[in-house]
């Protein structure tokens, strides 16, 4: 059965930056409000949605494709609870990378297959000197520490400290909330 699944372990995901922002039509906003809690698990979810939106099924499917092509919908997918799937170990690795090369090296870290999220973020000196964030996930501690070492090797020549540490890894003790985006109705 698993033979039919794509061998790629990278998701087909839209890379989004703010400069591509587009405004929503009233119907598009309604689309988001109707589906942000999820799609109903019925044979024809877009028929349900079309009825709610008072659009044809064709128009609803076209709107879905359009929202996806604009990156507003990243994908229509199942979101697992990673703890429950055995991925009990995750680490938010954080790095103090020289700003001059942060773009180039950030992209290289983001391209590593075990990195699920990778961003450059604002520093808060003197409390927080890390600008590059890379989330890693694994089924045991050894796995994530190996991943961290690989990132460290990649960044070896461009790490700095601002008088603090050059990198750290924050592991999560507990999920306190996980709901996803909510637009007000």
């Amino acid at each position, binding site marked *: 059965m698993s033979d*039919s*699944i794509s061998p790629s*372990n*990278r*998701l087909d*995901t839209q*890379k989004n*930056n*703010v400069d591509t*922002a*587009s*405004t*929503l039509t009233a119907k*598009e906003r309604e689309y988001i409000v109707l589906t942000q809690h*999820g*799609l109903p698990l019925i*044979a*024809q*979810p*877009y*028929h349900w949605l079309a009825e709610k939106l008072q659009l044809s099924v064709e128009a609803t*499917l076209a709107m*879905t494709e359009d929202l996806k092509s604009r*990156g*507003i*919908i*990243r*994908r*229509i*997918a*199942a*979101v*697992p609870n*990673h703890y*429950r*799937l*055995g*991925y009990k170990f995750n680490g*938010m690795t954080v790095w103090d990378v020289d700003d001059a090369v*942060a773009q180039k090296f*950030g992209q290289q870290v983001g391209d590593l297959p075990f*990195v*699920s999220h*990778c*961003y450059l*973020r*604002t520093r808060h000196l003197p409390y*927080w000197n890390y*600008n590059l964030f890379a*989330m890693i996930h694994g089924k045991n501690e050894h796995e994530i520490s190996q991943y961290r070492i690989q990132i460290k090797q990649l960044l070896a020549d461009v790490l700095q400290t601002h008088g603090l540490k050059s990198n*750290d890894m924050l*592991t*999560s003790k507990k999920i*306190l909330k*996980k709901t*996803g*985006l*909510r*637009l*007000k109705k």
Partner: protein
Amino acid sequence: MEIDQLTLLDKALINLLQKGLPICENPFQAVAEQLASTEQLVIERLQVMLDSGLLTRFGPMFDAACFGGAFTLAAMEVPEVQFEQVTQIVNSFDQVAHNYHRDHQLNMWFVIGAEQPQEITDVIASIEQQSGITVLNMPKQEEFYVGLYLPV
């Protein structure tokens, strides 16, 4: 329901549907055909996994930044004695999409997503006012990759 109770179909569904559901009139039929199963069984198993919390949600995943909205990551240093109370304050905002307890001096990390950038500023100000604790706002300056794929 735990991971060792997953059927082969369940595992195949988790793997396939993390990547995405096809956009068509009968998407579960399309998935069933790909996995040599039936539409009815696919829907039934997804419902079981959703009800048991193995899947946290199923549907479109939106990026607020693409329609003029904003996301940010924020962190706080919360004294342990206040932890539960501050969790309640932070989680009470609809704009807080995720919140994690992490092992660092900055021990609470949450994502705020909003339709208007101003909402983020307002939520942070309210959390600071209600908790008396500074919120460090760490908006993204650049995104290199977002996609969590966890095969079972």
